[in-house]
């Protein structure tokens, strides 16, 4: 008798989703899916609004990385107001936005690793869920928990100083930024009392990378084999091939490192990327047009970025990058669990970039905005913590938005996440008649590696639990477990 397993809601991810796994008569996995059950509709209700409202309105998609949406929208509007893309802004405009973005990247990566992932690593994915959570980490590994909280706080303070508020600020406006960094904030970030200063943040970021490397040594087989599968990888890279989280050109590589897209101006993303709608999910499935649906899907996010870029333009992160690349002999890394490793290298890079920027006098003075001849279409792309984020707006001659298209980071990772769920389901549930909690968490561990934001991905609201149900061939529910 065939069965259907549902994991709902998926926990320790941002947003609300569920997993269903169908078992056939021999209890073999016949089909597995990650369903995103939220619906939001930002693309629709932004229509008719004045264009300059978009960066503030659309960032409400998310409370975790609103800065990414804020900046992607602002970048799209830079194009519309004639300020050009990326390098077209004034030095102050671009650098203040970059500082905001690195602060965002830093806090989001710290949140994900310390709050969401560390319980799996410290206690094991099959440990008692009563201790396998952030409170368990705080009780047993106080130093690590404090690091996580304080690093996040530092990043949030950087956002406050650049955007005006820690969550949902208004700093980035079409054509630039609306404020300078104050002397008081600059001194606080540079030389604040321990641990709230940039030197400590860099030290802790390095310690986080070292922690993961030690964990990797001890759990090499698990980290290397868990949900491993080859894929394409896509991200922005700087013109010279460097990792650049704020601006660049689109590049994609296949699982062996061959460039399948390179030096693409993202204003023309529609020529290269297509989104497929499947009836069972509110999240679309993007793919590279020239490779088609079957072969054109790709991964985005920290792992993809370290696979597409040639180097990292900050010394400590570059050193870690070289070691990371040596694991796969310079070829793309297709190990799902290495997302965590890549994420922490980016954490270190973000801290280094913040340090450089804080020494830059352009943050404190200079023109805030620039404008040119207005046009009616603009695309803004940014490397958000979870991956490449596309915002596309079109306006009419009355300054109203008439079209909006958002391809959110997690949406780009839709197919890989489904593949990962399928991998774990096949490995752990084939032949099983009952689902154990560790099996269910293993599915979540795979999803969690991508740090998905399901709320953003459906542009939805709600919490993020995982609900797993087991159905027989006639769709009768025979077992169900919900984790909160």
């Amino acid at each position, binding site marked *: 008798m065939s069965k259907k397993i549902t994991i709902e809601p998926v926990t320790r991810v941002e947003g609300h989703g569920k997993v269903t796994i169908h078992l056939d008569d021999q209890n073999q996995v016949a089909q597995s899916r990650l369903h995103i059950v939220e619906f939001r509709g930002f693309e629709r209700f932004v229509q008719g609004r004045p264009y*300059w409202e978009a960066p503030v309105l659309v960032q409400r998609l998310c409370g975790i990385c609103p800065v990414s949406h804020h900046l992607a929208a602002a970048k799209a509007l830079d194009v519309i107001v004639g300020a050009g893309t990326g390098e077209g802004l004034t030095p102050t405009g671009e650098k203040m936005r970059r500082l905001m973005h690195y602060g965002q990247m830093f806090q989001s990566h710290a949140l994900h690793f310390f709050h969401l992932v560390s319980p799996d690593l410290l206690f094991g994915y099959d440990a008692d869920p009563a201790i396998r959570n952030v409170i368990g980490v705080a009780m047993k590994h106080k130093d690590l928990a404090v690091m996580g909280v304080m690093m996040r706080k530092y990043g949030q303070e950087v956002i406050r100083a650049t955007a*005006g508020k820690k969550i949902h600020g208004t700093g980035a*406006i079409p054509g630039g930024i609306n*404020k300078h960094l104050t002397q008081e904030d600059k001194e606080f970030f540079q030389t604040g009392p321990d641990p709230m200063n940039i030197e400590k943040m860099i030290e802790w970021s390095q310690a986080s990378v070292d922690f993961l490397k030690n964990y990797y040594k001890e759990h090499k087989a698990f980290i290397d084999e868990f949900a491993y599968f080859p894929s394409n990888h896509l991200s922005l890279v700087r013109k010279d091939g460097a990792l650049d989280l704020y601006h660049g050109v689109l590049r994609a590589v296949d699982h062996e490192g061959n460039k399948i897209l390179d030096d693409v101006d993202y204003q023309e993303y529609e020529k290269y990327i297509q989104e497929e709608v499947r009836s069972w999910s509110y999240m679309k499935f993007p793919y590279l047009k020239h490779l088609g649906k079957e072969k054109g899907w790709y991964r985005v996010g920290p792992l993809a970025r370290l696979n597409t870029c040639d180097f990292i333009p900050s010394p400590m992160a570059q050193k870690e990058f070289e070691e990371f690349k040596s694991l796969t002999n310079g070829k793309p890394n297709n190990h799902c669990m290495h997302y965590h490793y890549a994420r922490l290298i980016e954490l270190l890079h973000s801290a280094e970039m913040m340090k450089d920027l804080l020494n830059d006098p352009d943050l404190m003075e200079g023109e805030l905005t620039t404008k040119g001849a207005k046009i009616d279409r603009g695309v803004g792309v940014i490397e958000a913590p979870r991956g490449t984020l596309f915002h596309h707006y079109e306006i009419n001659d009355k*300054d109203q938005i008439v079209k909006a298209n958002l391809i959110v980071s997690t949406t780009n990772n839709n197919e890989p996440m489904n593949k990962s769920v399928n991998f774990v389901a096949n490995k752990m549930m084939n032949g099983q008649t009952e689902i154990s909690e560790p099996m269910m968490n293993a599915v979540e561990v795979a999803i969690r590696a991508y740090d998905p934001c399901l709320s953003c991905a459906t542009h939805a609201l709600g919490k993020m639990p995982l609900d797993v149900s087991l159905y027989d061939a006639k769709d009768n529910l025979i077992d169900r477990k919900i984790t909160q």
Partner: protein
Amino acid sequence: MAEKIKFTIDGKECYAEQGQTILAAALDNGVYIPSLCYLKDLIPAGSCRICNVKVSGRFMTACTTPVNDGMEVENNTPELEELRKSIVEMLFVSGNHFCPACEKSGNCELQALAYKYQMMVPRFPYIFPEKEVDPSSPKLFIERNRCILCKRCIRSIKDESGKSLFAFKKRGNKLMINLDHELAATMTDEMAEEAMEICPVGSILRKEKGFDQPIGHRKFDKQAIGSDIKSVI
């Protein structure tokens, strides 16, 4: 110089010019009476009703009622504050006020009053009325979802010959402000700026200027509405 009239607000001895309204006199005496439609030097409209005070047991709008000698005005009483709060809540439910994405947030007098009265959620059901925006002027974006029909724009934004650029259109629950597009075409940048400034909410928006004032520098970011009122007498 004409002799001043003596009166009291909540027992405090105050003085007013002959013919001065309770609200104008209160401001001169350093007493804050909350209001939305009132604007100094404009003919009062008495439309928002926030400035309701009590005189001899009767509710009166302070912006339209002249001071009489010996008048005893009740202003800061629990009854009146509750009444004002309920009016603020009514204004919220009768429009579509979504502060999170509104560029007037932090400079909005309606929002500032909601904070003053610690409004968490309106006691009345939301109406979610259908309102149309008017984006067609080159300098202004008219956002009727947020309009509280205070008539400040109608009373103050005028061309050189004294014609109002704004007027009311339709009646009853369809009543809305309307911008005369012929006159609006002659509008200077300063007039457009002034129109946005005098609107107590986010209904008149200067095009392409949104959010250029950083958080922390907006009117009500650091001080509550009315806390700057000081006696000038």
